[in-house]
Structures are given as structure tokens and as C-alpha cells.
């Protein structure tokens, strides 16, 4: 595009014609359209920051970040704003999801990238895309009305509550599985064929090539896939809101209800919290925490993706 800007520079030294004025106008219109996305970020940060600061005017920062009791909707003295139970719920649910999604997702990726014939890959990838396209409220419905009562309680005879972290976490794992599988598969497919051929030439088996050559070579892309999966699990609202209950919980027991940061926002914002009330401000403070956590993960993920692109492309 250097030629184009050079041409524009030359044109500026002449008297503007209607045609050149039109071209300049188009460019300005295009730039303003692309500023919409920048403005979106500015507005997200601005709205979160504004109400969060006002929240911290009423609740000390240390009470929020290190308090162990979360009951913001209680009246007067009973209200407590310790966010740790929500943070724990978020991490705990994500952890359960990852225990499902990392092994399944990565093995699916190895199969698709190294083992599957082109025809098999062509049929299986759309199926994974359908799984990725299922709205999360459908997963929530499935976890609450089928997975908990039919699988966990009747089939496996586990003593779990109707709302429990286990079902929500496992189903969330299947939600993020296609993300992890497809990003990891991209990374593995990007490993140059010469590495595989070199290993085969030295007498390695397909298993050894997959696990000891391709997997390590694609590691930065695989890490990016996992981090992206974590970030989706952390931000997921509907599955947790429907299947994990609405109780902020410090416990380690996955058969009990747990609540996450996102699910709290969903549960509280659904009611009509009046602007300026402490309840309204709480939504923004929790949202800010969620935004910061996912932002950090996204930046890490982008960095890792860039790393593997630099090596092989």
C-alpha cells in the first residue's frame, strides 16, 4: 500500500479536483468506521471504570478483593462485598471445564491433524463447528434438565444437588472443546512437513512423531488454544447461571451450587437495579474484574499465536 500513499502525497501538491476530493472523503469515511471498534473499547473501559470508582467510594478496595463473604443484595449491615467466593467459583468451574476440554480437545486436534484422512477430516470438522455454534443457553438447558438428573444422578448415582458445579463445569468443557481443538489443530498443521519426514527417516513411529515432534513444535499454538479456552470459560454466563445455581460458594465440593463473576452479573442485572444504587455499581465492579482477567488472557494468547507464526511462516 506504500504506492497508494505515495500517489496521495503527489496529489496533495496539485490543486484538488472533484475526483481527488471524493477520494479523500471516502478515506475519511472509512477511517471513521474503523474508529467505531476503538470507541467500543474506550466506552467499555470508560463505563466500567466510572461506576467501579464510584463503587470503591462506598466499599473499600481491600474489602472487595480480599473479603470472603459475598452478599451484596442484603440490606444494610448484612451486606458484604468480598469477591473471593465469586472468583473461586469462576476458577473452580473453569478448572472442571479444562479437565474435560484439554485432554479431549488436544487429542481431537492430534487426530485431525496427524491421523485423519482428508475425507474423514472433511466430515468431522463441520460437526465440531456445529458443536461450537450451539448457543450456550442450549448447553445450559442440557446441563440442567438432562446431564444432572439423568447422567450424574440416575446413571452414575452421584449425590449432587440439582444446581451443581460439576455438571456446569463438564458441559462448559464441551462448549470450549471445539475452540481448543481447532486452534490447536491449526498450530499442528502449521508444523512443516520436513520435521515429520526427518523423524520418520530416523525410524520414528507415527505415535512418536505426533507426541515428540509435532506436539512440542506446535506448543506455543497449543498454549494459545488453551488460554483462549480458559478465557471463554471464565466469561461464560448462561451455563453457569442455569446449571450451577446462584449461591456464591467458597467450598471445594463440586456437588454444591457455585456462582461465577459472569453469572452474578447475569443474575443481578436481570432485575431492574436503579442507576446509582450500590447494587447497580456492584455489577460494574464485578464486570471490571472479569474484563481485566479475560483481557490479560487474550493478550497472552495473542502473543503465543504470534510466536508460532513467526517461527514457521
Amino acid at each position, binding site marked *: 500500500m506504500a504506492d497508494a500513499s505515495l500517489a496521495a502525497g503527489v496529489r496533495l501538491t496539485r490543486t484538488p479536483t472533484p475526483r481527488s476530493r471524493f477520494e479523500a472523503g471516502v478515506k475519511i469515511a472509512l477511517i471513521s468506521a474503523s474508529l467505531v471498534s476503538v470507541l467500543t473499547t474506550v466506552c*467499555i473501559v470508560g463505563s466500567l471504570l466510572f461506576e467501579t470508582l464510584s463503587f470503591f467510594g462506598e466499599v473499600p478496595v481491600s474489602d472487595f478483593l480480599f473479603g470472603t463473604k459475598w452478599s451484596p443484595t442484603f440490606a444494610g449491615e448484612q451486606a458484604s462485598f468480598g469477591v473471593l467466593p465469586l472468583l473461586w467459583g469462576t476458577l473452580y468451574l473453569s478448572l472442571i471445564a479444562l479437565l474435560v476440554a484439554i485432554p479431549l480437545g488436544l487429542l481431537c486436534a492430534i487426530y485431525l491433524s496427524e*491421523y485423519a484422512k482428508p475425507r474423514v477430516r472433511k466430515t468431522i470438522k463441520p460437526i465440531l463447528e456445529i458443536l461450537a455454534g450451539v448457543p450456550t443457553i442450549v448447553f445450559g*438447558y442440557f446441563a440442567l*434438565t438432562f446431564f444432572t438428573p439423568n447422567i450424574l444422578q440416575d446413571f452414575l448415582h452421584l449425590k449432587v444437588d440439582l444446581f451443581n458445579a460439576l455438571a456446569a463445569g463438564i458441559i462448559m468443557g464441551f462448549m470450549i472443546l471445539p475452540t481448543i481443538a481447532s486452534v490447536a489443530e491449526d498450530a499442528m498443521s502449521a508444523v512443516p512437513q520436513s520435521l515429520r519426514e526427518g523423524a520418520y527417516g530416523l525410524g520414528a*513411529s507415527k*505415535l512418536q512423531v505426533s507426541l515428540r515432534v509435532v506436539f512440542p513444535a506446535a506448543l506455543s499454538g497449543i498454549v494459545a488454544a488453551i488460554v483462549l479456552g480458559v478465557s471463554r470459560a471464565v466469561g461464560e454466563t*448462561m451455563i453457569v447461571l442455569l446449571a450451577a445455581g446462584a449461591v456464591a460458594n467458597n467450598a471445594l465440593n463440586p456437588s454444591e451450587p457455585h456462582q461465577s463473576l459472569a453469572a452474578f*452479573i447475569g443474575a443481578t442485572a436481570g432485575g431492574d437495579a436503579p442507576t446509582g444504587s450500590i447494587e447497580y455499581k456492584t455489577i460494574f465492579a464485578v464486570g471490571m474484574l472479569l474484563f481485566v482477567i*479475560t483481557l490479560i488472557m*487474550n493478550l497472552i494468547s495473542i502473543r503465543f499465536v504470534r510466536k508460532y507464526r513467526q517461527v514457521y511462516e
Partner: protein
Amino acid sequence: MSATSEAIQAAPTSRRAKDTAFRLALMACLGVSILLLGVLLYDVVRDGVGHLDWHFITSFTSISADKAGAQAAIWGTIWLMGICAIFIVPVGVATAIYLEEYADNERWYNRLIEVNIQNLAAVPSIVYGILGLAFLVRGPLSLGNTVLAGGLTLGLLVLPVVIISGREAIRAVPPSIREGSMALGATQWQTIWRQVLPASIPGIATGVILALSRAIGETAPLIVVGAATVIAFNPEGLDSPFTALPIQIFSWIQRASNDINDYRPLAAAAILLLMIMLILMNSVAIWLRNRYEQKW
């Protein structure tokens, strides 16, 4: 002598056994994932197919589960998708054109726009709901709990999808097309408008449909911007209160557990409707991609 030849034979067999076991493990993992999708679809169809009829599509929601339908939700979703599309197509395509055809990648502000879009694509949807609540529903724009605020919130949410796929479609048009056009005396914009855009429309349309199919299933942001759960009329204008299919599903699931009426089959029927719309949209996208994909 015999011992060595045995050793030589033994090693490949155990290796082959390991290889086969690993291959089976891989296929089992894939099988589990596909099985879950199958069970999920089976469960929803079993619960909901009995309720999915003309009455369900043409009736409004009701206290009585037998009489309830999803008409307001269906029309709400159609309005939301319309507003969303009108917003994301011009803004998304213009951004994609700017970044591919005009922006100089060496400039810090262009790189900032790029990184920003990558980040926005991964911001949790509920945070967009908060943005909608603070800026569109209340605050500066004060649109209220209207279908316009809901549609714009969803539009902001899926805008990065349109931009990213639009850029890919534009990048796929070979430079020779541009050079040919410019050599005949066309300006940069004439080249883009008459050569590059027509060639990349299938790719752009695919991206737009995929973006809409993500927006149609989003529930969390609509909850936050205040979609109504019980509503007995269709949206009549941009400033109308609204509900949508995912919101209706959510409200029916939540009501199911504590009522004499069983709302769960209604939720399942609405999920079926949503999934049918999604599959139709995706089929159109796949068809577009296959029908008009050009190999240069």
C-alpha cells in the same frame, strides 16, 4: 543369535500395538465429543418436538403452558437481527476495507486498531451487555430497554467477526486485479468499489451470516440490557420493548422448576426453533462459500 532376531521382531510389534492403542484413544475422544452433540440434539428434539406446531409459532406467551407460544420472541429476534445486520454490514465492511486497502501497517495507530479488534473478539459477551446498559440503555444515549438498544449491543458484540472475515475475503483478491484496474486509470476507490468488493462479496456475506448466527443465540447481553421476559406483543418500532428467543427460552427454563404447569417442553420447542434457524443460516453460508468461491 535367535535371541537377537526375536528382539528385532518384538520391538516393532509392541510399537505397533502402542500405535494402534493411541489411534483408538484418539478416535474415542472424538467419539465422545460427537456423542455428546448427538445426545444433546436427541434430548432437545425428544422434549420439544411435540410442542413445535403452528399454534406455538403464532401464539403469545401465557401463564398456561398449553396455550403459550413464542410469536413475540420470534418477531423480537427478527427485529434484533435486522438492526444488527444494518449496523454491522456498513461499519464492518468499511473497517475491513480501510485495514486491508488503505492502512499502513507500520503506523502505530493502525496496529492499535488491529490489536484492539483481536481483543474485542474475545471480550465476554456479558461485558458487552454492561456496555449496552451503561451507554445505550441509560447514560449518554438513554434509548431505554428498547429493541434498538438490544440490536446495537449485539451488533457491537459481533462486529469483530465481520471485520476479521471481511479482511480475509478482501485479502484473497489478487493484487493483479487492482493493478489492472489502476493501470486503466481508475482511482483507488473506483478500483475497490468496482473490482475488489464485487470479487469478495461471497466471503463477506459468509462472514456476515456467521456473525448473525452468533448474535441470534446470545442471551447474556440481552438479559443485561433489559429484554422483557413476559411480553404479549411484537415490536412495532425501534423504540418498542422486546423479547427474543433466547430470552424466552431462559425464562421458560427458570419457570419450569417451580410451577404446576410444565414449561420445559416449551423451552425445548423454542430451542428447536432457534437451532433450525441456525442450521438454515449456516447452510446458506456454506452454500455461498462453495458456490462462489473463486480460485484465482
